């Protein structure tokens, strides 16, 4: 049945395509070629599951209501909205929309489109159920005014509205193509229009000359699928691609590659701090574990040579993390820099002695993700532990199995990490340390603690930003005092470009590039 349809379709389409199959080439100086490791999983907000490639395409084809302002990403700015107000109880958001904006299909952007898009994502995108589920009502007050009501206060909601899932789609296009067809014909208001897609080959975006912030300098963006890392590097060196992104994934950055490319005058390396945290996690919810004793945990966090790790393994492509938040978070408590453990093996040994623990009796399995860089980190930590007499065996475990093991609490020490996609302390704190969520994801598995749990929930819901910040300051200190893990490092976001590419701004959360202001010389 399906086969027959396909053949029939091909028979009809073939003569049509023969008439129209013109290859189009463009000026290389107006075309930006971006290397990506695989096809995008989806190109539209209704299906987006925070997968990097599709998400970046969405942020260039669509606009969100608000976005974080470059270069430090601590302030929100209006994109499709002129201004907004939040009710004192934090449950009502009123947006005043920009006027005169049109979708790529020529239809008008208005309050109905906002209501349609957000309700559509809420209905069909299960991935964002926890946050979009808070929306109780969206009202198009007038063509240029939208009111969104939440069932409970959630100040990070504006951050959620800056996410790819909250991008505004053309209702007319969704009606024309259907939900499934829209995925291959995405229509938004963004600086680039979706032009074509070829399986495992490329995704092509063409400039939107009528973009409301001004037409982009580039005429075309081509995402080229190049699965092999060494091929990507050769292509970059030969000028076959203009941009290679590492998307902040540990496995993708090899320190020796960075060093080699630094010496190449044709290649520019852009580094930006990320909000990713990688840590050695203790199982904080198992009273029988050897790390149940806080003295043992303190000994281990003092045994690790943090600066040596940053220099030795990462060659400066990662930064120090002092606590549960990175230094570039707006809620980072500067006091954490003093409170953070120092590398002091002598102190570590005496802490073990105080605890009455013979280090040679500790035989730990150090679990880790796969990949050479995780392996290098694990080996480094293993050597540090050996230095204070603790024997650790490294077990690099394949991801799905690793998750099962971690969420079941079958470990004492494990390497783990979190890459937040929305720019809010909530993205690290709530999921990582709220005891009721301990078993539901890869977390620190914190035991029940009425005071800390209440504080985390209060911070999540407090509307006033200054008040919120103080609550998170307090939370960071309280968490650090419990020594839930050793905060190892935060890898920088690294993007390699050809030297003639200008104007690229790297976002930190989500870690995705926007190409509106990019040009080539």
């Amino acid at each position: 049945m399906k086969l027959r349809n396909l053949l029939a379709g091909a028979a009809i389409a073939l003569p049509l395509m023969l008439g129209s199959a013109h290859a189009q080439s463009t000026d290389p100086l107006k075309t930006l070629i971006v290397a990506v490791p695989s096809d995008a999983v989806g190109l539209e907000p209704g299906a987006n599951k925070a997968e990097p490639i599709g998400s970046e395409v969405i942020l260039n084809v669509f606009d969100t209501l608000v976005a974080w302002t470059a270069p430090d990403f601590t302030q929100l700015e209006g994109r499709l909205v002129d201004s907004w107000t939040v009710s004192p109880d934090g449950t009502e958001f009123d947006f005043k929309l920009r006027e005169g904006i049109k979708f790529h299909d020529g239809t008008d952007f208005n309050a109905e489109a906002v209501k349609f898009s957000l309700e559509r994502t809420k209905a069909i995108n299960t991935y964002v159920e926890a946050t979009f589920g808070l929306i109780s009502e969206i009202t198009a007050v007038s063509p240029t005014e939208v009111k969104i009501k939440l069932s409970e206060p959630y100040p990070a909601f504006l951050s959620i509205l800056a996410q790819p899932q909250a991008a505004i789609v053309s209702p007319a296009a969704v009606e024309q193509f259907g939900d499934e067809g829209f995925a291959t014909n995405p229509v938004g208001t963004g600086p680039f229009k979706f032009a074509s897609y070829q399986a495992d080959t490329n995704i092509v975006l063409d400039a939107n000359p009528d973009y409301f912030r001004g037409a982009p300098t580039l005429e075309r963006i081509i995402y080229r699928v190049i699965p092999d890392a060494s091929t990507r590097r050769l292509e970059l060196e030969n000028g076959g691609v203009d941009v290679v992104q590492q998307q902040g994934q540990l496995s993708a950055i090899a320190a020796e590659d960075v060093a080699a490319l630094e010496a190449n005058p044709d290649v520019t390396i852009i580094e930006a701090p990320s909000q990713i945290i990688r840590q050695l996690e203790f199982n904080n919810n198992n009273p029988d574990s050897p790390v149940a004793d806080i003295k043992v945990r303190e000994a281990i966090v003092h045994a690790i040579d943090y600066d040596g790790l940053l220099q030795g393994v990462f060659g400066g492509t990662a930064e120090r993390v002092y606590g549960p938040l990175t230094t570039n978070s707006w809620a980072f408590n500067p006091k954490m820099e003093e409170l953070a453990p120092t590398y002091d093996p002598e102190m570590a040994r005496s802490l073990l002695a105080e605890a009455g623990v013979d280090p040679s009796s500790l035989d730990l399995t150090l679990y880790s993700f796969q990949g050479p860089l995780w392996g290098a980190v694990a080996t480094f930590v293993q050597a540090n532990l050996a230095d204070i007499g603790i024997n650790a065996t490294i077990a690099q475990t394949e991801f799905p199995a690793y998750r099962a093991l971690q969420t079941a609490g079958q470990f004492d020490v494990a390497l783990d990490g979190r890459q937040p996609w929305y720019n809010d302390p909530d993205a690290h704190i709530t999921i990582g340390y709220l005891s009721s969520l301990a078993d539901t994801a890869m977390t620190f598995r914190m035991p029940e603690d009425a005071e800390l749990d209440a504080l985390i929930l209060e911070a999540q819901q407090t509307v006033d930003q200054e008040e919120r910040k103080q609550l998170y300051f307090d939370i960071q200190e309280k968490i650090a005092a419990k020594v839930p893990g050793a905060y190892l490092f935060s890898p920088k976001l690294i993007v390699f470009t050809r030297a003639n590419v200008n104007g690229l701004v790297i976002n930190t959360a989500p870690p995705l590039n926007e190409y509106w202001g990019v040009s080539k010389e």
Partner: protein
Amino acid sequence: MASFLLRRLLALIPVLILVLVIVFSLVRLIPGDPAVTLLGPGATDAQIAALRAQMRLDEPFYLQFVNYLLGLLQGDMGISLKSGAPVLQEILLRLPATLELAICATLVAILVGIPIGVLSGTRPNSIFDHFTRVFSLVGVSMPAFLLALILQLIFATYLGWLPVSGRLSPYIIMQPITGFVILDGIITGQWDIVWSAIRYLVLPTAVLAAFLAATLGRFVRNTMLEVMSEDFIRTARAKGLTRAQVVLEHGLRNSLLPAITVVGLKFAEMLGGAILTETIFAWPGIGRFMFEAIKNRDYPVIQGTTLVFSLLFMLTSVLVDLLYGVLDPRVRKRMK
């Protein structure tokens, strides 16, 4: 001949069913499920459960299998868990790239391997024979990724003659007609596309062909040596035939028979086994597609590609048997 063909084709069905049962169970035995893999380390249980339900992975095993079989009978191989597109369509989109590469590589290997085999087989222990022995050894033992990297460095980076990877200049955006880029270029008369496509085809073809040409060269050399010492060759020489007639008409024709089996099986292997070459050269073929699917635990795609590979492999071996019949009258007689 017709009844032989029918018998051989019918015999494929139980094999295919067996392959299906094995693959269907095996992919579900690999630890980890597609929902977990697709969502990555940051996901919560609730997000994973929602995706599992959406993918209908929460249904019991036997129900999934029955539904899959019922779909197959209607030509429906299911929906890719990653892209949401029909698996058959996804495979057909990528098959031409793999076929194009496999056919070119096989042709090159035949054009290089057989003459080498004939020449060294008729001049055993000559300098040429020693030289080709080394060439063959290198060709057979060098891993594809290493050869690929060396060729990329020499011909793309240092000499700049050929592109590093891809199938067509990235600046040329072309919607496929047949999916065979060179053929599409010829159909539409766009010679710049044909030229670009050929340039991109050279390196991956060389990597794939090297192994086959080396194997084939050694193989033909040895059979040639054997055949050339047979009685009928002596008779042919005694009849006063020229050296070329003896070698090509009597020697080669008889030593080609076993070589066809080698070529056929290697060609079939290339259809499914060019994963490394396709990955390194960013070649959008079916081997790489399957590899990605295994990484992502995309069950329907793994099942679909395995089924297609098995089918192609078995059809190729039927074809080889038929070719035998064409070339060897003794076999033709037995087929009847």
